[in-house]
């Protein structure tokens, strides 16, 4: 048999390969995605079926608490609870698809209903995962007006400044006889943005912060009618300040965030981190500087970090901070408990064959204090003469913060220890020192 490939056979192979690749490419472009989706959906359903977490029914509702009624020009978030086959229930709001039977009466967009004009419309909610269930809810769109000329706001009491506070409007009566929540419908604003901030508008409540101990004017607008309201902050909460991860000690060059914990009595002791609401300053910026809620050590010494709340003169929170400078002065070794001084580090230290285990530790000398070096598995132990390998000369056990060395035969070893000055990947911050050992 002639084994030399002819031009025709090579051409045939190339054509076959091109055909396969083209066919694969064309086929891969279509159909697979829909089949994958169908299969993944089947697996999700099977898992839910086995776990008893398929959806048996849905409860649809308005998150503002009103019962199947919305006013013209009112918007309201929709919610859904899924009742599962195992009897439990779960929030299904995010998984829902919604539609309105008559968008000219009731419009739905991204889970938010808007009343357009008086009438009734059917809201349809469908969940597709893990199984498809559809439920309908008849919604009445009303053109009624609010009866009372003023709204009653359920202000929190106490209402400490620089603390997250929540409020809501007491349900109001409408001309059609219904009593409804209008907190979500209302537009909230303040006359002076530096005195108060609305931080969240939720279906049943509004969250805000006061930055003053003066009276704050709020304006609540519902259905194009303004309802002015006033609130004065009560006493300041008790606030304790620490650095993140605790403590009041900061290294020069180190940046850590401040944590201010307030405690005030409202329905029991309310505890909250409020550092983001305070204006922070340092008595001595040359020792520690503050930016937003981060404090950075600049030079060694003591300073006080002060937190103030808006225009309130009274000091809100203080932190006495010690800043220490870290000046790397070298790595110090200890053989057992004997320190190898900087003058001796270039000399070979003698260890005798027959000695018991020798404990070798290293410390970074940072001027005002020392830090014991860990991660000994990163240390490099090498044999420096031709007498044999490291394992021939000594048995070495790597403990968390020290080496245990048992001499076996004569030879010279070098142990290189490392200190990462800023624990970063920056190689320039990596300091090292070598301990020379001679086994005799």
């Amino acid at each position, binding site marked *: 048999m002639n084994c030399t490939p002819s031009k025709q*056979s090579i051409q045939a192979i190339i054509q076959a390969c091109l055909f396969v690749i083209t066919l*694969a490419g064309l086929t891969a472009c279509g159909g697979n995605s829909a089949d994958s989706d169908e*299969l993944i959906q*089947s*697996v999700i359903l*099977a898992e839910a079926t086995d776990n008893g977490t398929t959806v048996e029914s849905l409860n649809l509702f308005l998150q503002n608490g009103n019962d199947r009624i919305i006013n013209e020009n009112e918007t309201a978030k929709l919610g859904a609870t899924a009742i599962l086959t195992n009897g439990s229930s779960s929030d299904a709001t995010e998984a829902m698809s919604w539609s309105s039977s008559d968008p000219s009466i009731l419009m739905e967009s991204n889970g938010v209903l808007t009343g357009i004009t008086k009438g009734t419309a059917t809201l349809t909610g469908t969940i597709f995962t893990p199984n498809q269930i559809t439920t309908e809810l008849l919604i009445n769109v009303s053109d009624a007006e609010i009866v009372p000329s003023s709204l009653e706001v359920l202000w929190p009491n106490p209402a400490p400044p620089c603390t997250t506070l929540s409020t809501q409007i007491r349900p109001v009566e409408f001309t059609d006889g219904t009593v409804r929540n209008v907190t979500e419908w209302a537009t909230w604003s303040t006359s002076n943005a530096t005195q108060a901030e609305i931080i969240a508008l939720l279906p049943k409540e509004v969250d805000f912060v006061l930055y003053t101990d003066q009276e704050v004017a709020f304006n609540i607008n519902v259905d194009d009618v303004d309802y002015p309201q006033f609130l004065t902050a009560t006493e300041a909460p008790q606030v304790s300040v620490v650095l993140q991860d605790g403590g009041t000690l900061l290294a020069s060059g180190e940046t850590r965030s401040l944590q201010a914990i307030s405690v005030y009595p409202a329905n029991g002791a309310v505890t909250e981190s409020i550092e983001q609401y305070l204006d922070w300053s340092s008595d001595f910026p040359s020792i520690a500087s503050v930016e937003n809620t981060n404090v950075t050590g600049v030079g060694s010494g003591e300073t006080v970090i002060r937190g103030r709340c808006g225009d309130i003169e009274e000091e809100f929170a203080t932190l006495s901070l010690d800043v220490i400078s870290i000046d790397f002065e070298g790595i110090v070794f200890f053989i057992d408990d004997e320190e190898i001084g900087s003058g001796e580090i270039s000399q070979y230290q003698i260890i005798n064959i027959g000695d018991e285990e020798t404990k070798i530790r290293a410390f970074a000398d940072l001027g005002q204090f020392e830090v014991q070096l860990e991660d000994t598995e990163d240390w490099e132990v090498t044999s420096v003469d031709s007498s044999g390998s490291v394992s021939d000369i000594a048995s070495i056990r790597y403990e968390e913060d020290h080496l245990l060395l048992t001499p076996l035969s004569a030879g010279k070893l070098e142990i290189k220890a490392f200190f990462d000055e800023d624990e970063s990947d920056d190689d320039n911050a990596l300091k090292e020192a070598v301990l020379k050992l001679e086994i005799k």
Partner: protein
Amino acid sequence: MASFPIRPFIFIATLLSLSVALTPSYAANEKRSNQRGDYYVGVGANYTQLLIGDAEFNPTVIRLRGGVFVLNNIALELQLGKGIDSDSPFDSLDIEIDQLQAFYARFQSPTQRGFRIYFQGGYARTELLQSDHSDDEINNSFSGISYGFGFEDQFKYYKPLYFYFEANQLFNDEIDINSANLGIRYTFN
């Protein structure tokens, strides 16, 4: 869930195949190579790994193959498979391989002491059959570029016959279909 480490093996096998193909002994070992015009058939059992979402299914397939060498140690191969069993992590869903077709270009090393490795690349189409309690059966097919590697061991007393073990990736996208095959292959010289 166990994961099937197909990619590192494919990489290593490809390197081995290339290294063997580039050595001078390749041309010199004509007796140990399949010649142009040789053809073969084979049959094997196929343990499959279907990774769908977080779930793994392990159906078993019987896979037939036939091929012809268009050059020394380079063949075009057709494979046909039929599912015979399935292993599902769910009580309420079973997925098995209804049928499988693959068309590969096969690149193999010469036999060394009865042993050879090979790489195959081409196109595969896998048709899955899912069934649940309602006895409804749904077919989904997945097709695209497929590749794999394997090694063969020659029968000592019957040279045309080889044991093979190979690993393939049949489909890799939103779902993954991998397989491990064990079988025998007979070469007609």
